[in-house]
């Protein structure tokens, strides 16, 4: 009997409705999708199409109005807040548009944050972060505070923070939006490499055409619903 792979993330008829001045706004409408481990998925669509909200639903940062979400086979929507926090810590990595590194910690401390919370011993944490920093081209910057790093370097630290714990999936919201062209391409190379070499599952919300071109699965959203879901062969640029 063949072993059935558990989806990295799965949604079933998920809705997210916000109330604004008594008016219901359907930010996400009846989205059902399944993302397998190792996929490199882009959520695309115009502003207001629900990309960020769907990403937040997938990461358990916000609760759906209706429907259910599973991460790594565990139903997020049935969990208590503490359990969701634990699941985020162990199975989900986040990369934000504005990097969102903790300014009082060094690059190394930021990157090892989730490992530390998970109780990984100091030597192991340092070894893993240093190796990752070398791999993504920011070796030697471990002791710098975020304010002493360029935007591209900060975003790489953020990527390192997201992937160092080997999560089931990494959710990235407009990760290249604040970067110049060269930094964006370099960052995309890093994430594509991590996806191919480490098998890390990436789900992006983006407007960036370069990122869409690298996607092996492109999900287009319009008015909160899935307009199209297309798969493509692996990129040759990785």
């Amino acid at each position: 009997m063949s072993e059935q792979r558990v989806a990295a993330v799965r949604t079933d008829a998920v809705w997210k409705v916000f109330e604004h001045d008594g008016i219901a706004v359907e930010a996400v409408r009846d989205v059902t999708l399944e993302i397998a481990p190792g996929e490199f998925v882009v959520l695309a669509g115009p502003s207001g199409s629900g990309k960020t909200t769907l990403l937040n639903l997938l990461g358990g940062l916000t609760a759906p109005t209706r429907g259910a979400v599973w991460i790594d086979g565990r139903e997020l929507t049935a969990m208590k807040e503490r359990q969701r926090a634990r699941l985020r810590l162990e199975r989900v990595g986040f990369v934000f548009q504005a990097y969102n590194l903790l300014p009082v910690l060094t690059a190394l401390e930021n990157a090892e944050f989730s490992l530390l919370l998970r109780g990984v011993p100091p030597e192991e944490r340092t070894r893993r972060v240093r190796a990752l920093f070398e791999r993504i081209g920011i070796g030697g910057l471990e002791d710098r505070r975020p304010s002493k790093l360029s935007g591209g370097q900060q975003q790489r630290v953020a990527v390192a923070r997201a992937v160092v714990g080997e999560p089931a999936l990494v959710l990235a919201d407009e990760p290249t939006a604040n970067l110049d062209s060269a930094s964006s391409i370099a960052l995309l190379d890093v994430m594509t490499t991590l996806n191919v070499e480490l098998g890390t599952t990436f789900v992006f919300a983006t407007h960036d055409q370069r990122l869409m071109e690298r996607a092996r699965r492109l999900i287009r959203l319009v008015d909160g619903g899935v307009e199209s879901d297309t798969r493509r062969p692996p990129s040759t640029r990785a």
Partner: protein
Amino acid sequence: MRRARLLARLALRNVRRQTRRSILTASAMVLGVAVLVFSRALGDGAHEDWIDQGVRLGKGHIAVQHPRFQQSRHLDDRLTPRALAVAERALARPDIAKRVTAVAPRLEIQGLAYSATGAIPVFVTGVEPEIEAAFSKLGERVVEGRYLVDSDRLHAFVGQRLAERLDLEVGSRLVLTGQDATGEIAGQFVRVVGIFRTGLPEADEGIVHIPLRTAQEWLQVGGAVTTLAVLAVSGWDMPGVLEDLDAALAEDSSEVAALGWRQAMPELDAAIRIDDYGDYLFHIILFVIVGLAIVNTVLMSVLYRTREFGVLRALGLTKGETASVVFGEGLLLTAVSGLLGMVIGFAFTWIFFRNGLDYSGMLDNEFTISGILLEPVIVPIFRVVQVFQSLGSIVVIGVLASLYPAYRATRIDVAEAMKFEA
């Protein structure tokens, strides 16, 4: 444990991150605690002085009397020789005697003082001169002549206002009248040997000291006295001595009882309590202001860092852990600045330990409270309980001032926080 260390590290670095704001807030706390420590030490010192002055001019820390004498002030309610013997035996008990400095027997009546010029109501006290000299210290306030000595017989020590009103001077004759033990009005001739001035009008006009033996013969009470005035080694130990003395006198409670100065001098007790309440109110207002400053700083820091707290939650911190970072920041800020305030407060107090704080320049006249003349110098008192009070205040302020900002940090919507622009 690792988590706790990480959260503590975050809190510490966040406090250091806004150095100027932290220092400004901390200085309010430093000042608040320093003022608390100093004013507490000064207040305790002032109260000790009030009590000391009061008990010496009054009936001591403890007055051993007939149970009715406090109300009646009548010779019928004097200590009989038997009751006196019981009281003296109790005071001689080693566990009590070692905590007592002096015991002054007194025979007190209200009477009139006559001279050729007129008559004035006075409070006549028959005293053992040498014991009384050390006890009441009236002898230190002589302006003319001297205090009584044991060999004196028909002599009196009077206040300056009385001397002025009755036109008396050292060597002048004076007649004292009062109701004796038989109920008859009796007179006693005495000659002035000394005049004192306390600065307190009631005392300077109304107190007359005469030798105890003279008073006993004049009032026909034999060897009886109305009061044994007891001075404890320490005013703070008085309640314990009173309790032991009460127990020792319990069997003869119908004839003899011990009264603490709070009961014997209710006006002084009330004055100290009112002053204490005033101090407490002042400290509460002070700490509300300091607490609000800390709430403001920590809360501003929380609002300013909304996105950061959102990130912490997204990375896997629970609401409680996020709150503990904020709580830790508030507590750290309060603890460090509070301890510094304590050190400064005690250092400032120490400066005044030797010579006290002299506020005579602020007063035009003598300063009295509840019939007690106060020295215009307050010597602060250091007590271990002050350290615990200060530490307690720091903890209470720290906890109260950090709770609300910590609660606010738990209310942050993670998804919304990511949109927040600092």
